[in-house]
């Protein structure tokens, strides 16, 4: 990393300032690292850049229309502010944002820009979709120092290519998202979670899949293996009107009888549990451990973990078993050379979410792409950022 005294942080107040910064950097060939509040700054490969371009001064909720289920905010607005504004009118984002602070041990309030750049999606992903699914419009200042819009403020829009989705999760390598518009939904009247205890991974994930196959709209499905003498917990969340949750909890418990007798957590306990599952970190042991995020079809998850053997020092399953958080030793390559082939054989992919800078600089943080796909990625990236100055090396080694 370039030392701090050589780094300049630029925090423009508006899009014109973002454009000017990028224009100058592109002309000079000076690399830029893009940053929101920095709550997820341990995500991706370390970037060497002379300029940090911060969006933290682009703030404010710019549109809130509850009867149209839509909210817009500038990139530097905190997710907490957006959620608070929405809560005032009984709504929330249509997806569940994932908060990475516990994982990275950071304290800054996550911003809308960082949320979009990382497509950070929590447990409700299984039913409500990811950030990319709720995102209906963006303003993006590209590496050409041009600000383009894609999508808009309406729910259904196929006018032109879907650069909204393409920008979401692009880790700042195409441009700087300056404003985002999301679909919202009413906050559920209440929630409850059914918990089955003592299942092994295979049965736990089978129970989750069985629950997801019912019509009761399970909105969280996680399996937490036995830890420190406490039994494993297989957790299924229901969110809806009070009477529906009561009815559905009974029906769901009956459908899952073959897996054991489910206990029921009320709304308060349920909320606490899912915050913990979403944050993942505290369930994975010591903060020195490296953390992998493995994405795979749910039923193949337990097989992946079994093959990892002792390499997996701790693990939990979210997304019905399709998202596995795996803690490994941060030594060497953090297990990459063993883990990647096993995940690939299960037709999944893995991201090294947390590891020391040196490890993330040396191994592929994101799943390496097949050559034909890598060529398309490189071409597309160059079409947005021909000078190659934005978050260079964040996703893939140069």
């Amino acid at each position: 990393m370039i030392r701090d005294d050589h780094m300049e942080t630029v925090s423009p107040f508006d899009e014109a300032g973002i454009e000017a910064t990028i224009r100058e950097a592109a002309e000079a060939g000076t690399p830029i690292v893009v940053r929101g509040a920095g709550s997820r700054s341990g995500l991706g490969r370390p970037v060497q850049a002379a300029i940090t371009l911060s969006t933290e001064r682009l703030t404010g909720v710019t549109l809130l229309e509850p009867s149209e289920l839509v909210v817009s905010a500038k990139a530097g607005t905190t997710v907490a502010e957006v959620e608070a504004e929405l809560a005032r009118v009984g709504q929330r984002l249509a997806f569940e944002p994932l908060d990475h602070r516990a994982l990275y041990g950071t304290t800054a309030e996550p911003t809308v820009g960082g949320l979009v750049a990382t497509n950070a999606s929590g447990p409700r992903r299984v039913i409500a979709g990811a950030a990319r699914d709720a995102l209906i419009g963006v303003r993006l200042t590209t590496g050409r120092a041009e600000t383009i819009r894609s999508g808009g403020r309406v729910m259904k829009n196929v006018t032109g290519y879907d650069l909204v989705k393409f920008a979401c999760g692009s880790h700042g390598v195409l441009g700087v998202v300056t404003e985002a518009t999301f679909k919202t939904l009413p906050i559920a009247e209440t929630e409850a979670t059914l918990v089955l205890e003592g299942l092994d991974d295979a049965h736990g994930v089978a129970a989750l899949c069985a629950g997801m196959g019912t019509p009761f709209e399970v909105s969280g499905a996680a399996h937490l293996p036995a830890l420190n003498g406490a039994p494993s917990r297989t957790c299924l969340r229901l969110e809806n009107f009070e009477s529906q949750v009561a009815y559905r909890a009974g029906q769901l418990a009956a459908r899952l009888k073959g897996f054991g007798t489910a206990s029921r957590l009320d709304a308060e306990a349920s909320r606490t549990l899912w915050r913990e599952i979403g944050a993942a970190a505290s369930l994975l042991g010591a903060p020195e451990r490296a953390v992998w995020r493995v994405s795979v079809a749910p039923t193949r998850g337990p097989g992946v973990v079994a093959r990892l053997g002792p390499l997996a020092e701790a693990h939990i399953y979210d997304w019905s078993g399709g998202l596995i958080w795996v803690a490994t030793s941060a030594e060497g390559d953090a297990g990459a050379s063993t883990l990647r082939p096993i995940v690939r054989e299960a037709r999944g992919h893995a991201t090294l979410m947390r590891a020391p800078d040196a490890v993330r600089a040396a191994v592929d943080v994101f799943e390496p792409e097949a050559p034909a796909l890598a060529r398309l990625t490189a071409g597309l990236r160059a079409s947005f950022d021909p000078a190659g100055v934005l978050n260079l090396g964040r996703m893939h080694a140069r």
Partner: protein
Amino acid sequence: MSGIALLAPDPTILARRDAIVAGLRAIVPGEGVIVSEDERRAFESDALTAYRRVPMVVVLPSTTEQVAEVLAFCSREGVPVIPRGAGTSLAGGALPQEDAVVLGVAKMSKVLDVDLANRTVRVQTGVTNLGVSAAIAHEGFFYAPDPSSQLACTIAGNVAMNSGGAHCLKYGVTTNNLLGVTFVTLKGEIVEIGGDALDAPGLDMLGLICGSEGQFGVVTEATLRILPLAEGARPILFGFPSPEAAGACVAAVLGAGIVPVAIEYMDKLAIDICEDFAKAGYPRDVGAMLIVEVEGSAAEIDEQLARIGAIAEAHGATYARQAKTLAEAAAIWKGRKSAFGAMGRVSDYICMDGTIPTGKLPEVLTRIGEICEAQGLKVANIFHAGDGNLHPLVLYDMNDPVSLAKAERAGEDILLACVEAGGCLTGEHGVGIEKRDLMTAQFTRIELMQQMRVKSVFDPAWLLNPAKVFPLENRIAKAAA
């Protein structure tokens, strides 16, 4: 023939027709290459029937490998390729050109794998949209996006246009229900994008390809997310004295924290035409009508409909009819789902597809009325009210060129009004040729240039569906292939 300019055929390609046909026959045997003029004529248009062009040749491969070889061949020969699903595009997305190869996926229509535990199906993309749900209905599952043409339209076309439907208020459109594709590039590379996990690594290539209108490559297989069927579903029909009252009711329902699976709106003319045709029992003495559908157990449905009913009453509903049986539910939907067919019986029409912020509904409806009146044409309004996706049907006479020109003019003005109201040119049909020349109303030159650069990464010589999406003027320079 009418207003929208098409690309002039390239005589140097037409001159090589025999060699091109021979080259395709070497890749796809027998009936898979269609050469005779009679048979080619079946492919001359899609559902935008005012525009027709008989293609040079049609090829219907049976495997992904054949698709790859065909694309590589066309790329080498510099021949335009028009990908085609079932040809149900209302926007001219599958309209051929005389110097092009139409590449259809009709012969690749198998459901390859059903995985209920992981809630996915793997299909060849020539399968129809309804064919996917039909393959899993007996297991209690369905595929959510439900375009009106779902009996005929293919998953290939759905992916190309990012198709929606009446029920996407709750379940999303194609892009929200697509997990992976086998994507064939123009060079003939076969690329797997995504898979059967809930997300894919790298940049969101899947999201970019979905809705790219056949301009990036050809998708031959897809992994789709499927969902468990609800315990039950029940529509309720409300009549309102005015469009304004119906619009205010929609906003109030959503604002009250209720998200039905579908909210469909029909105006007076649409009601009359559908009722004449379908005898669905729609009220004729109202100014506008809503069909609201909710899902769940019987008790859950009762509770939700009671809440919705109270809101409708407070907004002046003068008529309410809840389906008490499956047959009554089917009757309520029958009128709406047969709307396009019913309309076609009384008049030729063009079906527009703008989206607006739902709060702007009353003023946009007024504007639509004025626009059509100025052209001396009638308009029937049908739309997905929950998400603001309008389908004004502008009635005209296809045999009268003046009438068609007026209808197209009215259609354009309607879409421009949608954009002015903060909405967009197309909610679910796509740009195709129909809205191509209006793209400059929605996007700046800079924005269009960036989109065209993206196309050029996939297709530097602009051979894939080249006449579509972008105005013919001010296009990005083609790179040598």
